[in-house]
């Protein structure tokens, strides 16, 4: 049987456009806006009127340098703007001013993805199309809103380091958190201030050469990004399995049908005829400018935070990242850590134990909610985690306590006492007696355990758990069973 099926590995690179939240546009003094009446924030420069010239927004350069520093890029002492030439109604000058072969930032890394480059450019105006397609072809009438035209953009290009649709969803959220923390953008995908295009190819697992890539556009949420990339990987693998080539093309993702359609070749067959923008002088990033950008960076960026949680506090990588990407979770975690021992409790809190309780809390209050605005005070969660660690309350019982805390708030110790949820121990609560009854009730299981089959211990532990309504600690029960069975 030649059932030798080739395994394929996806290779994904991302191009992220980020609208900078400067006060004014990239090359003129018009105010940035969203949802204002059309064409009210315009001037000769952003309308491309004859004779109007661009002037670089210093704040946008500052933000660009901040982003470069946050991503560990090398900041170019001298970078250039070019003209990227093409005709389209949303491009009033007939060219976009963008950085080309000498960008503001090169290299860098965020998490496990390398950054290729970061450059500055201007956004196009917004086209609105009347008609069913929502695109220029086949629409009855189109109009242009120049409010958006000239908005400062940073384009971040990654190396093709991503390997799965999940990662294509997760990594941009790290980037988004980072940018949000820098305060350089609203990073809102729905409003278009964060736009992600994906370059996708597949290759036989283990191959070093890259396959033919396609470019995916119009994925306006992280969820659609993941779905679009997944759909494209499946499409490419299916093509290759049928012995057909992948064509290099740009694909438009339709979230409604979860399908990818090629853009008409007219829309993409461009020779952009880049050349240095003669209306601008080179951007010179002086030491002072870089120092000023560095001074504006937050004390700790999400990637650094995740590394600290993982390396210094011993959290697992997923949890560390969750807390770092969702800063409200990280903040709550740290407040709980700091509050531990507040009530004269001298015991050391275990950060790992505590970290396990935050997802539990989030599950109870709704996954998008901020635990800080829940009934559960950080010190209460810290107390609960400490009690679990000290085996003063079993995990199962602690989950019950947490549910109560979410409902009514208060002190977990009081709830445990009131509800009688404290952990049963061998000495004082007849746990040993319950263990004896469990062994008596299922002698066959006991015999198997005795003869070395530890898997058979499950029913015995389960019996005690049921009888104690989860108040007993699983580890303690196991220890007692083994003791009784002479192991």
């Amino acid at each position, binding site marked *: 049987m030649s059932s030798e099926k080739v395994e394929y590995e996806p290779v994904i690179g991302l191009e992220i456009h980020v609208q900078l939240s400067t006060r004014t546009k990239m090359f003129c003094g018009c105010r940035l806006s969203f949802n204002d009446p059309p064409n009210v924030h315009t001037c*000769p420069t952003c309308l491309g009127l*004859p*004779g*109007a010239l661009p002037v670089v927004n210093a704040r946008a350069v500052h933000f660009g340098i901040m982003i470069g520093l946050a991503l560990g890029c090398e900041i170019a002492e001298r970078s250039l703007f070019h003209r990227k*030439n093409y005709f389209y109604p949303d491009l*009033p000058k007939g*060219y976009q001013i963008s950085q080309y072969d000498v960008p503001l930032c090169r290299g860098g890394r965020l998490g496990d993805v390398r950054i290729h480059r970061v450059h500055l450019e201007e956004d196009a105006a917004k086209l609105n199309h009347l008609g069913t397609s929502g695109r220029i072809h086949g629409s009855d009438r189109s109009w242009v809103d120049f409010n958006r035209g000239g908005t400062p953009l940073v384009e971040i290009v990654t190396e093709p380091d991503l390997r799965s649709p999940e990662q294509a969803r997760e990594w941009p959220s790290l980037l988004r958190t980072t940018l949000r923390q820098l305060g350089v953008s609203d990073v809102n995908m729905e409003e278009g201030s964060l736009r992600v295009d994906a370059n996708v190819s597949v290759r036989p697992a283990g191959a070093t050469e890259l396959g033919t890539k396609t470019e995916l556009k119009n994925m306006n949420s992280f969820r659609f990004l993941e779905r679009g990339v997944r759909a494209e990987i499946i499409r490419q693998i299916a093509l290759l399995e049928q012995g057909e080539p992948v064509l290099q093309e740009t694909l438009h993702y339709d979230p409604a049908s979860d399908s990818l359609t090629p853009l008409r070749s007219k829309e993409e067959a461009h*020779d952009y005829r880049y*050349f240095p923008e003669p209306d601008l*002088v080179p951007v010179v990033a002086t030491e002072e400018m870089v120092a000023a950008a560095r001074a504006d960076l937050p004390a700790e960026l999400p990637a650094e935070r995740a590394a600290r949680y993982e390396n210094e506090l011993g959290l697992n990588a997923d949890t560390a990242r969750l807390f770092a990407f969702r800063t409200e979770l990280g903040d709550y975690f740290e407040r709980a850590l700091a509050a531990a021992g507040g009530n004269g409790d001298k015991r050391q809190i275990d950060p790992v134990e505590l970290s396990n309780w935050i997802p539990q809390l989030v599950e109870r209050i709704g996954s998008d909610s901020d635990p800080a605005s829940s009934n559960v005070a950080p010190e209460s969660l810290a107390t609960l985690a400490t009690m679990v660690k000290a085996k003063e309350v079993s995990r199962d019982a602690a989950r019950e306590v947490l549910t109560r805390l979410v409902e009514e708030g208060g002190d977990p110790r009081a709830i445990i006492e009131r509800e009688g949820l404290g952990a049963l121990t061998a000495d004082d609560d007849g746990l040993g007696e319950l263990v004896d009854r469990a062994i008596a009730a299922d002698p066959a299981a006991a015999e198997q355990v005795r003869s070395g089959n530890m898997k058979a211990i499950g029913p015995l532990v389960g019996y005690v758990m049921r009888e104690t309504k989860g108040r007993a600690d699983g580890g303690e029960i196991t220890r007692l069973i083994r003791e009784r069975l002479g192991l």
Partner: protein
Amino acid sequence: MSELIELTAAAAAERIRAREIAPAELFEAYRARAAGNDLNAYTWVAEAPPADDGYAQAPLGGVPVAVKDLFCTEGVPSQSGSKILEGYRPPYTATVVGKLAQAGAPLLGKTNQDEFAMGSSNENSGFGPVLNPWDRSRVPGGSSGGSAAAVAAGLAPWALGTDTGGSIRQPAALCGIVGLKPTYGACSRHGMIAFASSLDQAGPLTRDVTDAALILRHTIGRDRHDSTSLEFPGEIALPQAEDLKGIRLGVPEELTGAAGGIEPGVRESFESTLALAERLGATVEPCRLPHAPHALSAYYLIAPAEASANLARFDGVRYGLRVDGDADLITMYSRTRDAGFGPEVKRRIMLGTYALSSGYYDAYYGTAQKVRTKIAEDFDNAFERFDFIVTPTSPCTAFELGSKIDDPLAMYLNDFLAVPMSLAGIAAISIPSGLSEGLPVGFQLAGPAFSESRLLDAAYALERAIGFDGSEARR
């Protein structure tokens, strides 16, 4: 009234300050001449003098200025000589025009020009050619042909033009007036409808060197709307040199030799001017600009390349001409641009687009930029030994209308002597050096960047010694 017209702008301003004439009187004298002109020098003329808001105290005394069509003037047609912008009235005014108005030189009218400043004869205008006041069967030069003809013919006291590859100096030469191309960056380009952004520079066309100095003084300076503009080091002094003692003039063999194609009459005038300069105390020696002969080739890659992008905005979407295309975007673009642009503009857009195309960029645009750098270095080297480089401004005097329009290369050669300075971004001035067969000849002096005050001084001393009389063109 004719007495008023005989005054230079500086002299007229002096008379206004002395309250011997009223600004409105001067304005109206020129306005009437401009409106009734038979040279097609204007595309728009003001209807009435502006209200006198203290012109007698203003540095430029209310002496009105004619402005090349391509300068944006708020509410006033600014068409850059192109049908694609016919009737276009911008919502703002170019910085230099605003500065002149501020200094007391109100707008008299807009002058005809080659379309988008592309041409050396003014025959490429979408609004008809301009005639040379010395001989109405001949061209005034270009692209600032309307400005040059208006000043020469006494239809304006002075004018503003732009020079990309000779467009101030060559028409000044052909019309027997003074034309100054300032150092690139000296005057703001904000509001100048662009031809080639890295070369375009505003400058004066005037009856004499003093008038040119006055306009320059009030148009220079860094403008926050133009990133390429620069703070001018020092002030523009009014020229007063009476001789050229100690001044070293270099005559570049590469430009003035056989390759220049200089007409005998022009050469004669040039050589007698050199002799005059020596009598004024200057030394005259040959110098080398080894790469200058390649300037025209480099220029005709760089300028069209930039133009191909600068003119992309004329797409029929927002302003200017629009020819609808059966609801199809691409057809609308093509029809609009086909109908709106003249043949020379189309030729240069094609040239520039080609020069920037993938696969050709390095060979054409890239090489041209290297040549440009070499030419600038040539001038740097020459200026170590010489104060100024001198050449005739144009190889020929004003030529017959229609004689070169079908031969682009012959037309381009008109700027052989002017283009090297444009590529180097340095200052250069053309002054009339005499007549050849009844037609004016221009003498060009080029100095290092920001040497304008010295350059004007030298031009002034020569001007006095030459004693050119341009009054014939004003009759």
